[in-house]
Each structure stands twice: as structure tokens, then as C-alpha cells.
């Protein structure tokens, strides 16, 4: 375990924390969800919860794209990788995600041709260099990475490549947030909106959260002070009875997003009628697939994919963690049977996963201290 770093601007953080504390209504409890796994990482790394008054709880949301991939899709990917002449390519984050018969790393060790790539464009290059092979790119991620996949497909089409395809697992953030808002398990007071996703989609898609659910949203940057500043902005809205979408990360996120990126996604991909999310179940119109015009690049059509739904291991409670209902350490196998070296669930695999972040920067947070002293 590593020690949590005191960061450079700790003084500013304490000053912000004092202003946040002043905004707490006596006797009221606040639950704020950070949607993005990158934010979760920062919060644990810098022990930000300890700067906040006890009345405020930060709840970790479903914004880790590796974590929300259901086991059945991992099995489908393994099946694709095992087809004759296939080279499967994938981001490194995906390599250790367990399917029902092991991970990409396990399959690679057993001789399956699975290669880690930095970019889908690297995958495209592998296809060009191996004309006698069929190269499949395991596409994962929210709107942050979907434009890259779309641009790569457009490039493949322009170059007339016929041995390159996409196993498309791109998901969209808004339906997941809506599913959480509609879930009876959790009552939230506001959202720390994802930073990088919003670079693409902008801030407007969150307006329904403020308008229809009367909850404030603040799109936030990734540094510790960004997050504390966003908590302050949320608390100020709550204190003043406002619910609006605000942009704390305007230095990077344009209000309207990246129009070229949105056009690229729309050109190549369309919404699926429904998609299974680990922990959240089936959510309608929550994921992307290739448009019929680009079916020549759709691995799901080029190969037969089993598409079998696989239940998570019984001991694993990633679903509850992803919904923010359980804290990582409340899971029965956290840190014992399930560790970053031998993950059972996806939340322990990705560095953005709440469990891995908590494990790596583990310390007795105030909730844990309370529990330990109670028991």
C-alpha cells in the first residue's frame, strides 16, 4: 500500500474545505456522485474525503468503462480472438479483465494472438502489415474514446482495408446517469460531472438532470483542487436552492463539446436498442454499434459471437460498487480473494476502478474508521 500524498496546494484545499463546511445545513446529509473513474482515482489518491465535513459523502459512479463491461462480452471477445487467422487487439486496461474462462492475458499466455495497442490506429497498422490475417479491435470506452474508433474506421474505409474490424463495446454516459437517478437504491444530491467525456459531449446533455430531477451538476477537472472546487460549487447551488449545470473545467471543456468528434461517432455508429452493463443490468439506448453502412467493419457481423449472458461470480459485488450502493471495502472479497493481482471483479482491474483505487491508496477513511470502532 502506498501513502496518500499531501498535495502541493493543501493550504488552498483546507481553505476551500472550510467554505464547503459553512454551506452544510445542520443535520442534513449530502451524497454527491462523481461519475468518472478518473475522479475516483484523484479522490482516493489524495484522501479528499478527509477534507470534507462528515455530512458530505462522495459516492463513486459507473464511469469506468472497463468496469462496466459484462462478463458475457469478455467471453465474446475471447471467442473472437480464438477464431482462425484472427489477431485480437486491445487497450492494456482490458487485458486483465476476467471472463468466465480467464482474461486476455491468460489466453495470450496460452498462445492466442492478442496484442496490446495504445491506439486503434496502431491496430489499423497491424491490419495493414498482416494482410493474410483478420485484425479485430476490442473497442471500449465512453464518448472519450468512441471518436477515436470512429475516425479509425473512416480511415480504414478510405484505405480500402478489408481485414480490419471492430468489436464495439462503446457505451454512453447519459443513460447510465439516468438509470442511477431512476434507481430506488440511492438518493443523490448532486453530480460531479465527468471531465474528459464532456470534452466530447459538452455540458448540454446534463441539463435534464438539473431540469427534470432538480439536481445540480458541475463538470470537473481532475486535480484535487478541481474536485474540491466542484464540491463547493455543488454545495453552493444546494444552499441557494438552485439546480443548474455548471462547468468548473471550462479551461478544457467547451460548453458544446467537440462537434467534429460527435459527427464522427454519428457517421460510423448508432445506438443499440439496449446493452447490458455490469451491475446496472440492461439499459436501453446506452451503447453504440456500427451503422449498417459500416457493417464490413463490424466484428459482431463478420464472425459469429456467442452473445451468452454470464452471471458475475457470486462473491463479486462490483454491481453494487458501480451503482454507488456499496463502498469498495464493504465487498466481501475486497482485498482478500480480490486484489489487483488476482481480480475477481472489474472494479479491481482498472486503475480507475473504485476498488483498485481504494486498494492502491488504501487507508482508513473516516467511514471505515467509524465501522472499525463500532465493531
Amino acid at each position: 500500500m502506498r501513502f496518500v500524498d499531501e498535495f502541493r496546494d493543501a493550504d488552498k484545499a483546507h481553505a476551500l474545505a472550510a467554505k464547503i463546511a459553512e454551506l452544510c445545513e445542520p443535520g442534513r446529509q449530502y451524497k454527491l456522485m462523481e461519475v468518472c473513474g478518473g475522479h475516483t482515482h484523484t479522490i482516493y489518491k489524495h484522501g479528499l474525503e478527509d477534507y470534507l465535513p462528515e455530512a458530505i459523502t462522495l459516492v463513486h459512479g459507473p464511469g469506468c468503462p472497463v468496469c462496466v463491461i459484462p462478463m458475457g462480452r469478455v467471453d465474446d471477445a475471447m471467442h473472437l480472438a480464438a477464431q482462425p487467422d484472427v489477431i485480437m487487439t486491445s487497450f492494456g486496461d482490458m487485458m486483465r479483465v476476467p471472463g468466465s474462462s480467464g482474461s486476455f492475458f491468460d489466453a495470450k499466455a496460452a498462445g492466442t494472438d492478442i496484442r496490446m495497442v495504445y491506439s486503434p490506429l496502431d491496430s489499423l497498422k497491424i491490419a495493414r502489415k498482416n494482410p493474410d490475417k483478420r485484425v479485430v479491435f476490442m473497442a471500449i470506452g465512453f464518448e472519450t474514446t468512441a471518436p477515436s474508433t470512429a475516425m479509425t474506421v473512416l480511415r480504414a474505409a478510405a484505405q480500402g482495408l478489408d481485414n480490419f474490424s471492430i468489436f464495439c463495446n462503446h457505451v454512453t454516459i447519459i443513460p447510465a446517469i439516468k438509470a442511477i437517478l431512476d434507481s430506488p437504491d440511492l438518493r443523490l444530491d448532486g453530480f460531479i460531472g465527468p471531465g474528459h467525456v464532456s470534452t466530447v459531449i459538452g455540458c448540454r446533455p446534463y441539463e435534464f438532470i438539473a431540469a427534470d430531477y432538480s439536481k445540480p451538476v458541475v463538470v470537473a477537472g481532475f486535480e484535487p483542487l478541481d474536485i474540491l472546487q466542484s464540491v463547493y460549487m455543488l454545495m453552493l447551488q444546494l444552499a441557494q436552492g438552485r439546480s443548474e449545470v455548471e462547468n468548473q473545467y471550462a479551461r478544457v471543456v467547451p460548453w458544446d463539446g467537440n462537434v467534429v468528434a460527435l459527427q464522427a461517432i454519428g457517421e460510423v455508429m448508432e445506438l443499440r436498442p439496449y446493452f447490458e452493463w455490469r451491475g446496472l443490468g440492461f439499459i436501453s439506448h446506452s451503447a453504440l454499434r456500427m451503422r449498417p453502412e459500416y457493417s464490413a467493419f463490424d466484428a459482431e457481423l463478420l464472425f459469429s459471437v456467442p452473445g451468452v449472458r454470464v452471471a458475475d461470480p457470486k462473491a463479486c459485488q462490483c454491481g453494487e460498487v458501480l451503482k454507488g450502493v456499496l463502498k469498495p471495502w464493504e465487498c466481501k472479497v475486497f482485498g482478500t480473494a480480490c486484489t489487483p493481482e488476482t481480480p475477481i471483479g472489474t472494479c479491481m482491474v482498472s486503475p480507475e476502478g473504485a476498488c483498485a483505487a481504494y486498494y492502491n491508496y488504501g487507508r482508513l477513511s473516516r467511514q471505515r474508521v467509524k465501522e472499525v470502532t463500532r465493531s
Partner: protein
Amino acid sequence: MCLGIPGEVIEFLPDQPDLARVDVSGVRRVINIGLLSDDPPAPGEWVLIHVGFALSKIDEDEAAAALEFLEGIGQAYEEELAALQESRIE
């Protein structure tokens, strides 16, 4: 994969207008800048890069702050840089 990493645009590739060579923490690699075609960056400007694509332009101060933050988070950034080092986009 989820990390946005800042890179300084060094030069455009001849005959490939949507590709540029960038410098990320001393690592020079080629990335795609097609998603910024509305407002392309000039050499010397900074961009935030996701999986080989520049997703937004940022100023130098933001780049420095983002870099300091990434260097602070350690392993995840080291892995991203190692992956970038293997990358040969063309």
C-alpha cells in the same frame, strides 16, 4: 486509456495533414489531429491526447498542471507512457 495526456505539437507530417508529431514528457510520437479540424493546433501549441487522438487544445499552463498531476498519479501514467512509446501511428 482514460487518461488525457498533454503533448506539444512539434510538426505536421508531410502529405498527411491529419497527423502530427507531438512531444509527451520527452517521448515523440505521431498522433491524429483530425478531431481538431475546426481549429487545428499550430506547432508549439499543446493538445490533450486520448488513445492517439488530440481531443482538445489546451494552453501551456494547463498542460503543465495536467502533466504535474499525471506524474503524481504514478503507475497509471507510466503505463500510458509505456503504451505510447510502443505506438507507431502512420
